């Protein structure tokens, strides 16, 4: 029950003194309390747990993390593809066309 679900804020309003909003979870719209994320605006993404938004999803951090994974793979491929220069048996066992 500790799983939070990401959703997009579609509407923000006040009810019973609490900041509430409609959040879209991939087509399912639910009413959510936004009191703990006072900075969010319509269009932002948030993680919702038991009817409460607990954190705003930081798009920039998400993109940076994904870029890091991409880069890691690219680096690895480059290292594998690079010929091992300076080894003694380089001439006897060519590593293909580079």
């Amino acid at each position: 029950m500790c799983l939070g679900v990401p959703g997009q804020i579609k509407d923000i309003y006040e009810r019973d003194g609490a900041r509430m909003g409609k959040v879209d979870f991939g087509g399912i719209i639910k009413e959510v309390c936004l009191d703990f994320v006072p900075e969010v605006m319509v269009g932002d993404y948030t993680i919702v747990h038991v009817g409460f938004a607990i954190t705003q999803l930081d798009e920039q951090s998400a993109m940076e993390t994904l870029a890091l994974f991409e880069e890691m793979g690219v680096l690895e491929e480059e290292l594998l593809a690079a010929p091992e220069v300076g080894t003694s048996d380089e001439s006897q066992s060519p590593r293909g066309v580079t």
Partner: protein
Amino acid sequence: MKYLEEFRDPELARRLLDDIHGIAKGQWVLMEVCGGQTHSLIRNGIDTLLPDAIELIHGPGCPVCVTPLEVIDKALRIAAQPNVTFCSFGDMLRVPGSGEDLFTVRSGGGDVRIVYSPLDAVKIARDNPAREVVFFGIGFETTAPANAMAVVQAKRLGLKNFSMLVSHVLVPPALDAIMSSPHTRVNGFLAAGHVCSVMGYWQYEPLAQRFRVPIVVTGFEPLDLLQGIRMAVRQLEEGRYEVENAYARAVTREGNVPAQKLLSEVFEVTPRKWRGIGEIPNSGWGLSSAYREFDAAIRFDVTDINTVEPAICRSGDVLQGLIKPNECPAFGKECTPRKPLGATMVSSEGACAAYYQYGRFVSLESIG
């Protein structure tokens, strides 16, 4: 949905896995703290794709699993009263007390309702002034702000017929207890991402230093988990023990400050019993004196209930990472999700249920 597909990208997962295989030299045991992480790991088969020398064990992070028997018994006693409407998150209804469960109370005529949010229970109380409405306030730091808000709203609305049976548990004291045990096998932790969304991760820094154990804040998607494992293994290989954040899109060091403010107003730290483990000092939240009028245990006079747990279930050992679910003699035999003996099999996030659901009937070690 944003970031769900991206963080499930199999191509990137492969790269992370290759990287983990490249850096792992020693034998390491990592504990994922949260039951949601356990399910994601097992469902995606991540445990089977890791190097043999890296073992994942499952932590105490399932609130349904760790709610002690006596609290369930208190809930059952309150829910059975004729003037009470008892509201709970759905996954608590099948957890057996020392006898029956909340479903049994309901089929016996009790007014037991499943709510999605604690605010739903407040609404029921407002709409039904003649009934006593009780909410079952369990959960870790993720759930606590929502439950705190329900009490605050009930007070603001002047409701006299709303109360909460509170059994909140806190993660850092549990990690402390696990590391303090002479039997612990844990070399590193994957900390529960959404608990940290609320509380931040500064609280974990003294633990990492004291026990010289890396703690990596980790999310729930396959890439999140692989990244968390990679960061933990890298620290172990380099001899570091720090708190690192592999879930930066949802977690900051300081956490959710408005939520923390409300928590410190509504709750105070108490000792708390954990099912299968026993009492851990300072490991729970109860209502603070300003909100004690909303304490259902006092209102319904059930503070005296004290229950002893049955010996057959090994869920305490499972929750502390001492055994795997399929090493319990009852697993899949006397104990199944249809006839659960312990909370770790009842809860959909429990480790025993995950092993059962995904067919882990023999331990991976024995397959080789």
